[in-house]
């Protein structure tokens, strides 16, 4: 006899958080962005947030597409400008929890100045920066995060520029919470995202992710899973490590952990206190 009470099987364990009508997604097999999205979804699940009060903003690039797959109010904006767009949303409606998810090229290169100043102002945003060391969607060009002397399509003789150290940039600019994990540190990454989202102010979580399409192929590093495993196996957890030690050398040790967790008044708190102080 047919059981009419069988619960409709879920297409995905996180289907209430994802836009299932947009699956399959565009990311390549072996890419780490999916891990970051899973960790984020897991974090949302654990946080038990009212998802109506959550907003995801992305810039442009592979990670820039994340906003399109999360089933909350979500904005896919312009290249590098997710942070100022998110700033407008957060200040326009302070009840919103606003998360920026974007790539290293988007956040640190074209959007570098916005990153610096949103951190300085301590706008209450969480930034998840998926760092794959390369511009992937545009075809494997050298990025501000490309380690020396990695090959890219635009550094055929190896990259000679000093790469950005994302946690150091975040700390120096004023971020109140800074952590870094690789794409395989799923549990730790999830808990860092939870911490970051609960922390009032500008929080940054960097996710070291393989680019299986360009970075691995050009540098002959195997497939995405090989790289993911390499990053994981070669990572060393050092909580509280001074951020100037966090440079990432080519295929060497990667220091991960929580590096910054401090208190500073957010932009909105500072403004309110200022207005009160002035009798405003």
């Amino acid at each position: 006899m047919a059981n009419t009470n069988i619960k409709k099987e879920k297409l995905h364990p996180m289907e209430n958080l994802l836009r299932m009508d947009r699956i399959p997604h565009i990311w390549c097999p072996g890419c780490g962005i999916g891990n970051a999205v899973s960790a984020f979804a897991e974090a949302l699940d654990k946080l038990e947030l009212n998802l109506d009060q959550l907003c995801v903003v992305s810039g442009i690039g592979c990670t820039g597409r994340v906003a399109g797959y999360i089933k909350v109010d979500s904005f896919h904006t312009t290249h590098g400008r997710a942070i100022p767009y998110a700033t407008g949303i957060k200040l326009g409606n302070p009840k919103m929890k606003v998360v920026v998810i974007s790539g290293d090229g988007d956040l640190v290169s074209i959007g570098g100045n916005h990153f610096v100043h949103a951190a300085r102002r301590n706008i209450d945003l969480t930034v998840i920066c998926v760092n794959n060391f390369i511009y992937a969607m545009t075809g494997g060009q050298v990025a501000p995060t490309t380690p020396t002397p990695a090959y890219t399509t635009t550094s055929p003789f190896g990259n000679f520029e000093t790469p950005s150290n994302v946690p150091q940039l975040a700390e120096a600019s004023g971020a109140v919470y800074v952590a870094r994990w690789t794409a395989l540190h799923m549990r730790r990454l999830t808990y860092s995202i939870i911490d970051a989202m609960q922390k009032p102010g500008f929080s940054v979580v960097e996710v070291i992710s393989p680019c299986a399409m360009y970075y691995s192929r050009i540098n002959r590093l195997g497939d995405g899973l090989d790289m993911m495993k390499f990053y994981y196996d070669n990572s060393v957890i050092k909580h509280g490590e001074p951020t100037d030690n966090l440079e990432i050398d080519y295929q060497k040790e990667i220091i991960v952990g929580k590096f910054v967790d401090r208190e500073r008044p957010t932009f909105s708190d500072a403004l309110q206190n200022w207005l009160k102080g002035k009798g405003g």
Partner: protein
Amino acid sequence: MKNSNISVQSGTHTLTGCQACAEGALSAGCSFLGYYPIHPSFDIVERYAERFSDVDGVLIQMEDEVSALAAVLGASWTGKRAMTVTTGTGFAQMAEHIGLGIMLETPCVIVDVQRDGPSEGIPCNPGASDIMQARWGSHGDYEIIALSPNSPQDMYDLTIKAFSLSEKYRTPVVIVTDTDICNKKEKINIPDSKDIKVSTRKYYKGKKENYLPFQYDTKDLIPPMVDVMDGYRFHVTGLTHDERGYPVMNDECQELNVHRIVQKIRLFVDDIIDIEEEKTDDAEVVIVSYGTTSNDALNAVKQVRKEGIKAGNLRLKTVWPFPEKKILELAKKIDNFIVPEINYGQIYLEVERCARGEAKTHFLHHDSKKVGTAEDIIKLLKKVTK
């Protein structure tokens, strides 16, 4: 009205054009101003800064003009009426987000206090050199609405109108003005708040699961909006998108998406376009003017009329969309158009195009040292009617 506190200082005040602009914005319910400091637009911010805490508003100095307009667009999706102010070089930086504002159909107001250009130009000189930048500054096909005030009172009125149009048509609206108007001080009348009419964006009221951020088949081609946190969990993207706001990159979707955005303005040009005609009924020569230059044009008409020259003035309060029909209609009746501009010929090109050879079009470079005088216009009026 949603999330906006109207703060109207009714009565007569002596204000500069900049101050009038800030008061116009406050009267229209503007509660978010994101900007980057640049001369000569800054007096607008100063006035707003004195008042924003009274209206529960947000004022933020961003790190550049790119981010200033990005923040304004973000704020607009929270239901706030939002504005930014800038000038030529800053306006150039905003071009990218004018495109995003158009594509995401986000209401907002951008005030461009034009200076001489290109590049840094002469920051303190009045200019009209951004007229084409206002029209075509961002890439891609789009229509823009741009208004051009000619006095502080007009600045107040048109700022309110700009918010109204941006809300109604769900699009960014530009106010193209200049230092002459912005620094001029005169008595302006601020009406009672009940007499100020500002359109409100069309909000979606149907079932949540049926909401389409870019619905195609509305009568007015303007899809209803929702705010963040309303529970619709919508997605929007600057990529070519379907009704759901999802990226779909094919020619068919480009047509449905972008053609509608263009048509939602083109079909309603008669509602949007605002012009003022002075003695055009029997005119043989018509000056087409806008902004501060329109005051000099009106003086010129007044003076040559005394000498029996049948001159008239067509003042464009709305620079974009351009009154194509009106120009052609006049061209069939008159012999000559004169287009004085504080640039080397921008609206002139439009007048000449729209006249379709029915009347001659003469350009007059009415540069900043001539602003406030009508002599060069009078001289040309006499020359073409000889």
